[in-house]
């Protein structure tokens, strides 16, 4: 789509700003692979939950306060990225940038909270990936989730930069909705982890 038709599309019909069918199908497929991937890590976490070997268990070292703050960050960020997608569907360049920046900030907040939690585990409780099976499974599972949060935030920064340069005009704003799907998925995985990892460990 060239610039001229893009402008016409933007001015005539908002419906055309949505993601293309190809993008939607591919994103659903991609999220399915991600779901299968995380399911495997979660199954492995639960497989060893009762018998983590000598050393600390989840119930002994996990705290509920920090992940609660992280959950607030992520749930709020699902809302803000939905607002970014709504701005995109209306063709509002500044609105997209603003809400994406808020989302990235919340993601960074979540990562900081995870960092504080990990620092406590590593320095106060002496749990690392090598300590025992709890350490191995916990750091792998939570680590991969945090990695996905990082990737999502970086994708949003790329989108923001592309919008700033004008490379991603209103015609390409449909991609913001797809980034949103990815982000909702990452948040959804976190809610599952909240139950599987932290609720299970409540005394």
């Amino acid at each position, binding site marked *: 789509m060239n610039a001229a038709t893009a402008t016409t599309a933007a001015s005539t019909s908002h419906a055309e700003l949505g993601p293309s069918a190809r993008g939607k199908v591919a994103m659903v497929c991609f999220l399915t*692979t991600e779901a299968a*991937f995380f399911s*495997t890590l979660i199954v*492995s976490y639960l497989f060893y939950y009762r018998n983590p070997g000598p050393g600390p268990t989840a119930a002994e070292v996990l705290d509920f306060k920090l992940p609660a703050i992280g959950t607030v960050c992520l749930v709020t960020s699902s809302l803000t990225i939905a607002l970014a997608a709504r701005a995109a569907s209306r063709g509002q360049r500044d609105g997209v940038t603003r809400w994406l920046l808020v989302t990235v900030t919340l993601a960074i907040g979540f990562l900081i909270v995870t960092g504080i939690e990990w620092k406590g585990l590593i320095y106060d409780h002496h749990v690392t990936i090598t300590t025992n099976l709890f350490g191995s499974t916990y750091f792998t599972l939570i680590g991969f989730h945090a990695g996905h949060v990082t990737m999502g935030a970086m994708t949003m920064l790329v989108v923001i930069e592309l919008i700033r340069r004008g490379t991603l005009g209103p015609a390409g704003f449909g991609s913001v909705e797809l980034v949103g799907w990815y982000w909702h998925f990452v948040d959804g995985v976190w809610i599952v982890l909240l139950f599987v990892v932290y609720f299970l460990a409540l005394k």
Partner: protein
Amino acid sequence: MSTLESTNVVPAARPSLFEQCVTTVDHKVLGILYLLASGLFFLAAGLEAALMRWQLMQPHAGKLDPDTFNELFTMHGTTMVFFVGMPVLVGFGNYLVPLMIGARDMAFPRLNALGFWLFFFGGLLTYYSFFAGGAPDIGWFGYAPLTAYAFSRDTSTDYWILGLLVSGIGTVAAGINFVTTIVTMRAPGMTLGKLPLFVWMMLVDAVLIIVAFPPLTAAQIMLLLDRSLGAHFFDTQEGGSALLWQHLFWFFGHPEVYILVLPAFGMISEIVPVFSRKVIFGYESVAAATVGIGFISLGVWAHHMFAVGMSSTLDAIFAGATFLIAVPTGIKVFNWVATLYGGKLRLDSPMLFSLGFLSMFLLGGLTGIMLATVPIDWQVTDTYFVVAHFHYVLFGGTIFAVMAGLYYWFPKMSGRLLDERLARWNFWLLLAGFNLTFGPMHFAGLLGMPRRIYTYAEGNGWEVWNQLSTLGVIVQGAAFLVLFVNIGRSLRSGKPAGDDPWDAWTLEWATASPPAPYNFEVVPEVRSRRPLWDLKHPDDPDWRYE
């Protein structure tokens, strides 16, 4: 390729063949690259197999030491599954799916190229281990705790993990691309009910890739963390479980068998009707059976683990699920046979290989039912009987179908026909060599010969079966030599094929051979399952009856 010569490009600006291959995003060129690369790996895997058979020909042969033998069977299995079977099918899919559905290319051409190069370099990385201190020697299934650092201190296992991770990501990319292409880019009028059966099977295949590969990726990452960072997932000395690895590996590994055979079913479903001059018998049931196989295949993985000591309840459940998968598979076999029944059969090479597929795959399926019966499995597990079974399924199934597909679509890809006389030599040599190699393994296995052993004592009655097997490898080698000669001669001086040498009915035959980069000048509107038949027979089109 040939079309480039007719354009007005200044010769100096024309990229070399090498540059074209490296930079291409055309699904047809990528498809051929997949076929060439998997052919290369096939040679390597064949050589590995031949060396193993050389060693096993006599008791106490002493031609190879045990470590080398372990490396050979690991690399043979890994190569055949990941670098031959899947890429050759993905290659055919890449070439054919857009042509069959009337699209100009795959949905994401650059992702497509990335997928190919990830597979190719993943394969090279695995093979590089030979030069980096030794190839992997853990079996293609990488059972814990053999893969633990304690038992595998060199880097070979890391090469195995990394090579498969890289190529696995490429395969998943291809899977996503196939689903997107098939769902969103069909020609006008081509509803899901009018999709060619090969495309149907590629669709189910791609969904299986999407669901089954990430668990393998996750398991391999855990193993890598064990080996590199000191985690304990599969480290049995620290409470890690060898059983978890088996569950995760076979949760991938069993659907993988269907990933390897569904596109082969698809090829047979395209070829048998054309050479019987009949529409396929029961199109709907073939497509539905494919979806059924896809679902059931995700629930049978533990039938690889009957001997591991699961509860008898679990054994019974997985045995039942495995019997169940024979139903849709049987439906397909009956459909193919019913298509043959009463047809005007033309026994050209694609049809010959299809008939070879039907009979050999049937034998493999029957021993599969035997193995699904838990007590029989307990008796023959990890013997050559199992080796014979899966070679009848994967070689007799996938490779015979791929050969049928190669003879069928080679004229489309190259614009030239293959020689039928050489094709017949190829077929009969391969059929004889295949049965001579893998048939005796049933008997060696029933006599108790375990798989993966590098040598054996005389007097068990295994010698004669092993000698026959080794003899069979030589015959198979001759068969493939004939194939390569045939391809070489055809490319140099083969008869021009024309657009539609087999008088076929699907859309890929509606365009030139080889097709132009944009595939179709005008995409015909599809009104039935045999769009090209409709074009050829406007007086009696299919859509009147569908």
